[in-house]
């Protein structure tokens, strides 16, 4: 087994990041190619990142990331910016609470797992199950995503997660969705969304730029036109997307459709003993 840091408490003494991290002022740079162990284990990398956060860093730059999991998970420093160069592994920014993560490359599965607040910007593709169970914050993906994106997103009070996908999403987008907003732009061609769209959703809303046929909808989802509030929200999200990636997107609201729950109880009758 490779060297794995097993931290006990927050003030433990370890060598994580000793050979690869440099801190100047409130900026930290972790270059994984300088590490003595190759590839660096994710516990070592996360331990070094937590050290930087404890030292009050507001910018952490990771270079040469290669499949390390759980990066910046549970990070909760307000105003922190994490730049990831390379290919992060699963569960990037899980339980994220405030910081901004920017990925210059493709993200793997389960990006932003159960994130609470903050922002994840992916300048590439983010594969399956992106933004699962998000409770707040924002995920912006420039390219495509995979299956079951935004599964079980939820909202409560002021916390309202939003996900914008520049490219396409596959099947089961917004499955069991209970709140929040997903916007799919379908830039780059191809059908913007797959099948079983919004299966079992009972809250929240999905906006899709392009064609969506009724056969693509999952149980519990309904196709609706956009109202004025929806158009305002789509414009706001488009603004976020354009600001993050600097790409031009048409502001014409005619090309969008809305998918929303057809009822607040999509499986009413399925498991109801009185309805046999």
């Amino acid at each position, binding site marked *: 087994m490779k060297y794995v840091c097993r931290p006990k408490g927050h003030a433990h003494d370890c060598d994580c990041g000793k050979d690869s991290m440099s801190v100047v002022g409130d900026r930290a740079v972790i270059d994984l190619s300088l590490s003595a162990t190759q590839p660096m284990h994710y516990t070592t990398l996360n331990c070094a990142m937590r050290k930087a956060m404890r030292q009050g860093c507001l910018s952490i730059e990771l270079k040469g990331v290669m499949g390390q999991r759980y990066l910046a998970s549970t990070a909760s420093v307000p105003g922190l910016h994490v730049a990831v160069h*390379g290919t992060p592994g699963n569960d990037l920014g899980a339980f994220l609470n405030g910081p901004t993560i920017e990925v210059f490359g493709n993200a793997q599965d389960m990006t932003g797992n159960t994130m609470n607040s903050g922002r994840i910007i992916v300048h590439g593709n983010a594969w399956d199950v992106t933004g699962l169970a998000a409770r707040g914050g924002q995920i912006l993906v420039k390219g495509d995503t995979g299956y079951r994106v935004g599964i079980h997103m939820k909202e409560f009070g002021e916390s309202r997660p939003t996900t914008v996908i520049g490219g396409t999403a596959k099947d089961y987008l917004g499955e069991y969705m209970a709140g929040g907003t997903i916007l799919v732009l379908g830039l780059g061609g191809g059908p913007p969304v797959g099948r079983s769209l919004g299966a079992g959703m009972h809250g929240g809303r999905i906006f899709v730029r392009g064609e969506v046929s009724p056969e693509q909808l999952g149980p519990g989802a309904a196709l609706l036109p956009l109202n004025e509030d929806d158009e305002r929200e789509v414009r706001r999200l488009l603004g976020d997307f354009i600001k993050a990636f600097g790409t031009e997107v048409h502001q014409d609201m005619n090309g969008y459709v809305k998918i929303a729950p057809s009822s607040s109880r999509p499986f009413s009758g399925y498991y109801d003993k009185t309805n046999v």
Partner: protein
Amino acid sequence: MIHRKDRRDRTDRLGAPVRAENYIASSPPGWQGQLGGCGIASLISLKGERIGGERITRMLTIMEERENGLGAGYACYGLFPDRSDQYCLQFFFDDEEGKRNVEDFLQGRLDIMHDEVVFIKERSTISPPYPIVWRYFVDVPENRVWRGDRDLGEEDYLVEIVQHINANVPNAFCVSSGKDMAVFKGNGYSYEIADLYDLDRYSGTMWLSHSRFPTNSPAWWAGAHPLSLLDWGVCHNGEITSYGVNRKLVEMNGYRCTVLTDTEVVTYLWDLLVRRNRLPIEVAAFVMAPSTYQEICLLPPAERRLAEWLRITYKEAFLNGPFSIIVGRSRPETTLIALADRKKLRPMIAGLSPDDGVAYCASEESAIRIVEPDARTWAPGAGNPFIAVAGKGVLRRGTEPSFQGVRV
């Protein structure tokens, strides 16, 4: 309270001892919670060039998080250019007696043209005993093969021999039996197995690899992936919950299950569907991971008839449950197939090198990026096969509609 040592020996209805330990509130020794899921990685040279084993080792070991040290393996295709027309039977023997047993059995049944020990670097991190790994290059004697009445060929004969050895010959197990390929596997971490066999010494046009996180069968050397029969090699991440039905189908067609794991059945299914029933690869993939009837209803009439016919004819070959598999074969062409289940419940990323020379498939993108930083990557769709052939290129990216270009 009854103490464990006071318990009477249990037997089943036939009187065989039942050895299941009974743990109640205290956990079994060595038990620990683990996160994981098998890792699979593969690469194929589309120009037919040879690629060294260190490349696939780097691909697989970067996904160390997906394994727990209970099995890993590699399959190399295009390995024996000098003996590509002979079957290479590669064996695990417990001891010299196993080797004698096999050689006695093969006497007169197959012509052994050459045999050699497979190099093993004994290591302390993998706990002994190590098997004796031996390979035989064999020809099939023509007079043995003739079964004019049953339309069986030499490959069927070889399947019978291999499965008989695995089921009946003690202390021996045939891990691969194809032409121009061999399987290197064992019980350990991916980097340990690569080091044990010293994979750097081998090169081939295609490599498959697998690091194991066993879920429903024990860890043993012969049970590690890739599981192989003839020139089929299958690496599998996930579990097939329809195992019982699928197993009945292959057993009815004459295969004998000796590893007792779902991946073994998938291997026999590929052999049954593609080699024996001569289905095109895209069609066999549809049979294993078919569309739902709701989707089939939306297909054009001819394709819809084909899809319904396949679902009805091969309903026992439908693999239910989460899986992503990588399949290789060396004949008629060296082919790499990658397939995820129809809901894409296990990860699969494909990639292509910038010069279109090498195609990759792996569980995680990092496995591709570590050997090809500038690769173009994409995700093949659910139940949609990725197919690449050495010397021809990527025939199917796994993003096309089902049955595109298929004529049956």
